[in-house]
């Protein structure tokens, strides 16, 4: 009987020791978690309703870009679109995504395809400011636009119509950290 | 030569250390001095334990009206003669080789040493009590008397937030060893005579 008590006590002691160890590990985890929790999206988590709207905020406010915004969120690259820039984003409207072969968007939105999705979206961003005038100038000088992925997109001008990498520019919006050129197509790799 | 004679002569010669090693040291420790400040006392001078220590002790002490540590004191004139004289006397006694004279030398050393310590005490008393009337800061002890800043004769003592340490240094330790050797020589000679 005595032995039993002794053994139980040893076991209990062991549990206490382990538990205290466990709580240490937990506190470390929670500290790291705290950082992630307060700023899960990096700079995109900064709450600021005074500054002029940035590319991400403008896109979120646009009904025509709900698919794009969902894709950006799925790829977790929000912070790129709030960066100091200047950036030019060629933002495909919802219809452009809808025009892709059936199932493409759904497939890309799956967590396991996060990286592929990020690459596709990044191909729509260029360092620098290219508004309509800027795009026309690039076309006039025969220069291609260098995209954040390293691809080059050709700019073509036909009268008032401008296309970039085959996608037609529908509208241009100036934001605090760059320019959104609304386009009618998703720009896929050649 | 008899071993006792050698021991007596070597013991007396150890007094020679007083001419180049410090005899005594007073050190002050306080939180604002990560490296304590202190003063080494030789038979003929006061010296910084680290560069500028005496200057910094003086700067600190002048606020409570203490006088600067003097650069020379009269004792520095006569101490070397006593030390040198006792050393030569000890060697001569050793060569003479009468063991009772060894004890006599030892006794004389004790008497002279006591006089030196008394003199040291008087100087410390003077240094710690004779404060300038114009002192910027005047502390009183719990009886309302002006506070004294006398360092201990030997040992450690707290003075305000300073810990004052007063201890012999290598020169004095060699002297003590020499004195002990004179006593040892006395017994050794006794043993050698019996054999």
């Amino acid at each position: 009987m005595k032995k039993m008590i002794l053994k139980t006590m040893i076991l209990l002691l062991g549990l206490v020791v382990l538990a205290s160890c466990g709580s240490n590990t937990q506190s470390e985890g929670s500290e790291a978690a705290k950082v992630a929790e307060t700023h899960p999206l990096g700079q995109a988590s900064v709450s600021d309703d005074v500054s002029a709207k940035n590319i991400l905020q403008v896109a979120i406010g646009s009904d025509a870009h709900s698919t794009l915004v969902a894709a950006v969120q799925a790829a977790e690259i929000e912070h790129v679109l709030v960066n100091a820039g200047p950036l030019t984003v060629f933002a495909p409207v919802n219809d452009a995504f809808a025009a892709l072969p059936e199932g493409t968007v759904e497939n890309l939105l799956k967590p396991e395809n996060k990286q592929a999705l990020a690459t596709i979206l990044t191909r729509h961003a260029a360092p620098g400011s290219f508004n309509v005038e800027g795009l026309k100038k690039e076309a006039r000088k025969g220069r291609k636009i260098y995209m954040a992925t390293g691809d080059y997109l050709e700019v073509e001008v036909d009268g008032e119509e401008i296309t970039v990498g085959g996608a037609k520019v529908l509208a241009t919006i100036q934001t605090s950290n760059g320019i959104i050129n609304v386009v009618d197509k998703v720009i896929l790799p050649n | 030569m008899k071993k006792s004679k050698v021991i007596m002569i070597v013991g007396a010669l150890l007094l020679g250390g007083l001419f180049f090693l410090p005899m005594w040291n007073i050190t002050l420790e306080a939180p604002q001095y990560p490296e304590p400040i202190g003063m080494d006392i030789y038979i003929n001078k006061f010296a910084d334990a680290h560069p500028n220590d005496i200057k910094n002790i003086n700067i600190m002490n002048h606020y409570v009206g203490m006088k600067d540590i003097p650069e020379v004191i009269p004792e520095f004139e006569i101490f070397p003669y006593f030390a040198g004289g006792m050393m030569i006397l000890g060697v001569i006694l050793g060569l003479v080789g009468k063991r009772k004279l060894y004890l006599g030398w030892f006794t004389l050393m004790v008497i002279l040493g006591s006089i030196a310590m008394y003199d040291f005490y008087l100087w410390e008393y003077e240094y710690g009590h004779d404060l300038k009337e114009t002192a910027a800061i005047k502390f009183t002890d719990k009886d309302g008397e002006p506070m004294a800043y006398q360092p201990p004769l030997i040992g450690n003592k707290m003075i305000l937030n300073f810990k004052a340490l007063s201890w012999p240094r290598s020169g004095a330790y060699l002297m003590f060893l020499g004195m002990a050797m004179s006593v040892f020589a006395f017994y050794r000679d006794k043993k050698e005579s019996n054999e």
Partner: protein
Amino acid sequence: MNTYKKIVGYALTLSLLFIAGSCNQGGGNGGALGDSNAERVYVAPGEHDEYYGFVSGGFSGQLAVYGLPSGRLFKVIPVFSVDGEKAYGFSEETKPMLETSFGTVPWDDSHHPDLSQTNGEIDGRWCFINANNTPRIARISLSTFETEEIIELPNSAGNHSSSFVTENSEYVVAGTRFSVPIPQRDMPIDDYKGNFKGAISFISIAQETGRMNLDFQIKMPGFDYDLAHPGRGASHGWMFFTTYNTEEANTLLEVNASQNDKDFIAAINWKKAEELIANGDFETMPSEYAHNVYDESTQMATSTMKKEVKIIDATKYPGLVYLLPTPKSPHGCDVDPSGEFIIGSGKLSASLTAHSFTKMMDAIENEKFDGDAYGIPILNYDDIVAGVVQQAGLGPLHTEFDGRGNAYTTFFISSEVVKWKLGTWEVLDRAPTYYSVGHLMIPGGNSRKPYGKYLIALNKITKDRYLPTGPELAQSAQLYDISGDKMQLLSDFPTIGEPHYAAGAPASLIKPNQLKLYKLEENNHPHAVKNEKDTRVERNGTEVHIYMTTIRSHFAPDNIEGIKVGDKVYFHVTNLEQDYDVPHGIAMIGANTSELLIMPGQTETFVWNPKKEGVWPFYCTDFCSALHQEMQGYVRVSARNSNVPLKWSLDGE
């Protein structure tokens, strides 16, 4: 059976004790072993940090000294901007430090600190830093933490690819950002192409004293030279510079300098340049640039105007420079600890390029060139590239190394630090920064011997990271523990100015060399007085020199009469203290200059122009002692035509 049970029992107990023991170890130990982030950056009161961090002050023009891992700020060393706190640029002794060929320049933009090296390892002697705007290089002593020397760079403009120290501190190298007419002349800006040139300066360092000398400049094509790092090990003797605007555009560079698919890393063989100099293959060009030196013995700075500079034209001497094609306006140019890999970060690219020094030498030997620029051979990209870190992030800027075969690169646009492996070029880990990181620093991270325990990321934007301070916000440094497989963000702390680059060193390299005070007997200042008996006031026409001393807790003299309106009064003040950390200050009412802050054993001077009659006080500005508040004095100022005799005293004597 019983014995068996006993053994099991003991084993169980022992293992529990072991667990308990290991648990304690994790918890009690602080530093990087501590198990909470707070413990890992906590340096207990009285304890010292493990590393010094020297962080550029950016547009403050200064250099800030932090402790790592605590992030505590110890000192802002004034370098290129005046600093009233330390009388830098205000005292007569330091005014010459800010002299240039344009006159006194009281401000600059400091960018890239770099530490002296011996055998490719940081040695704790000096820190160098560049002034970007009015091109200069400064040398800061790491025993006094004071700026000792500043040299101006002629023919340079926007001194950005600077200041980088070669493996044995032979040179500190500085490259121009802007290409300009060399020599400067009045010409149309549109004639830029082919006519503007870029100057790369090689400043030698005297090993005993640290004294700098502009040995020679290499005149390069009219590109922009962005950043640089020296070769080390096998590549010792080479210096690598990133270039952009190889288009040689002179307007709207954000577009026009981003056209070429590849710009260059310029590899300069400076051993070859030394040979050319020795053979007399250079041109001596008349020039004008200031060389300012602070002498620790006289405690005075002097400024000398130099009159000429040796120039080597890179286009004329084969074997001096080769161009390594590197994608998309490379910014950072970093060399790994072995000296084999030269990393170019195309700031508009998503990938990083690593060139191989071995392959480069091979291509040069076999003369496998792919054209030339103004006669300078261009190597073939495919011949020299060692590897590419694909799609590592967006907007790569700078890379440092941990000495364990890993590299760490900052990405501005995607706001992160990415850890990758040298040789396999695979991404190992990524950590976000808050926000928009520029440079990063690992102590010794650009030497042969990195101390790969901590990394600091130097961020450009803080937004909501700290308590807000109106529109202008602090910038920040973020500390990561990189000792494990994964980077761990431990803390962040605000920095002064804008932190560009930084340099770090183990405290043990620098702490033992600290000067604690200036020895009075070694003070050779021409206006020093070493004891109160020699204090005095002398008049020479309208110029009055007051030779004053300070010691706890008084000035000598502290009553001065016979000064007249319109005099120019020099206060030469010597601090007689010889005790660590007992400076005295002095400030005079209405003086059109700063206080003085005088270290023990030091002499400093300020000038006062009394404008009004009256009795005007001065006082000690540094809380020196219990009777600091009593440390004060008066100067009586009389009318210009008065007969009040010159008189000075302390306590009536």
